[in-house]
């Protein structure tokens, strides 16, 4: 593997990380919004979301990506490979995040909500000051776990022609006729990315514990 190969692996790593971060940044709040609709039991919307989430959780990234990339243009929405990749990964992670948020909401103690109501807090204030800070804490480990799963699902975007770590490694292997060195390098890069997410979670938790002690 020459220096150019390392450069294209690094570019692939950037693409993987950028796509994953974009999907996480949109998917986390989207999943929360869906979970809140489910939690409130909004008529029609709640069962519709339940079905959609169940479908998305069973959808392989490859298949969903192909659907979005090839079917949207037939209904007049032209979409490039990168946005299609982001939409695919976002939908998948939002569905899983929705279930995680919903689990945390369902476990939220009722008495706290009633106490907040009794001092005259509006629904929005209750959510912002009482519910969100606490469910963020209880849901964090599962959310970070889902982020690492998303990174592992991200090579699905290869079918759209997006060059992420995996596809960069395949290309180098095809050019040099030695596939194992770039694959090993890709393996190390993925491990580093996954490890970074776990590290970030540990840092956040340590900080919060320090803040609680102080």
């Amino acid at each position: 593997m020459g220096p150019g190969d390392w450069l294209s692996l690094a570019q692939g790593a950037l693409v993987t990380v950028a796509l994953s971060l974009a999907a996480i940044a949109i998917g986390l709040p989207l999943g929360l919004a869906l979970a809140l609709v489910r939690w409130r039991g909004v008529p029609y919307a709640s069962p519709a979301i339940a079905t959609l989430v169940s479908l998305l959780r069973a959808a392989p990234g490859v298949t969903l990506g192909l659907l979005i990339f090839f079917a949207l243009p037939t209904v007049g929405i032209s979409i490039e490979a990168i946005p299609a990749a982001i939409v695919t990964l976002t939908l998948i992670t939002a569905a899983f995040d929705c279930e995680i948020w919903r689990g945390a909401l369902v476990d939220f103690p009722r008495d706290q909500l009633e106490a907040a109501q009794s001092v005259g807090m509006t629904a929005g204030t209750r959510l912002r000051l009482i519910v969100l800070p606490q469910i963020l804490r209880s849901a964090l480990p599962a959310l970070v776990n889902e982020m690492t799963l998303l990174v592992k699902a991200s090579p699905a975007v290869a079918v759209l022609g997006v060059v992420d770590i995996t596809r960069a490694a395949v290309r180098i292997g095809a050019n040099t006729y030695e596939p194992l060195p770039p694959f090993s390098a890709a393996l190390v890069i993925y491990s580093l990315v996954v490890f970074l997410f776990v590290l970030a979670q540990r840092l956040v938790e340590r900080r919060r514990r320090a803040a609680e002690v102080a």
Partner: protein
Amino acid sequence: MTTGLAILWEHRDLLIDGFLTTLWLAALSALASLALGSLLAIALMARRPMVARASGALVDAMRCVPFLLFAYIIYYGLPSLGLRFSNWSSGLFALIVYNTAYMAELLRGAWRGLPVEMIEAGHAFGFHGIRLVRRIILPPVILAAVPMLGNQVIQIIKDSAFLTIIAVEELTHAATVIQQTYFLPFASFVSALLLYWVLCVGVEQLVRRVGAHAEARR
């Protein structure tokens, strides 16, 4: 749209073949990786620190690799070791080896939660070594792990779609062929997604049944 569905219906055998291939791949690799994962879980729980650490490192490494990358390593790596497999068998092999690590890790989690008294009672009744593991430890461990194992089977079903990239003729591959031949992106991929859904909901129902059965036996 309706003409699209009509064309799709005409070529339904393509989708059905793909569906059956996916079903086969998932069922075979779930069973094989559960069996091999049980063996690996024994290594993970071994008293010898060398064995436990080496198998732990193997499992951790596997849990950091995306399945597609691992499938590529098998697909391109095995021939360079002088082993030639068809696309189907190297795909199946990759699914089995990859998920063996995940199954072992799930079983280890359940094993840790097993009450010590149960193992001590086994000792008292003269169970030791592999018989203790097989008759006393593994049955409750596997029953306790069933919900997680079910989730992993769903992951296997979804991961098997990656195998379309190495030209295994599974469900997503069938949908792609229909899309390319008849230009039916919507009908073909939506039907494929619905079939994946059916499979996953089926696994969830099965897990619920086994869970109820286990609860009744307690």
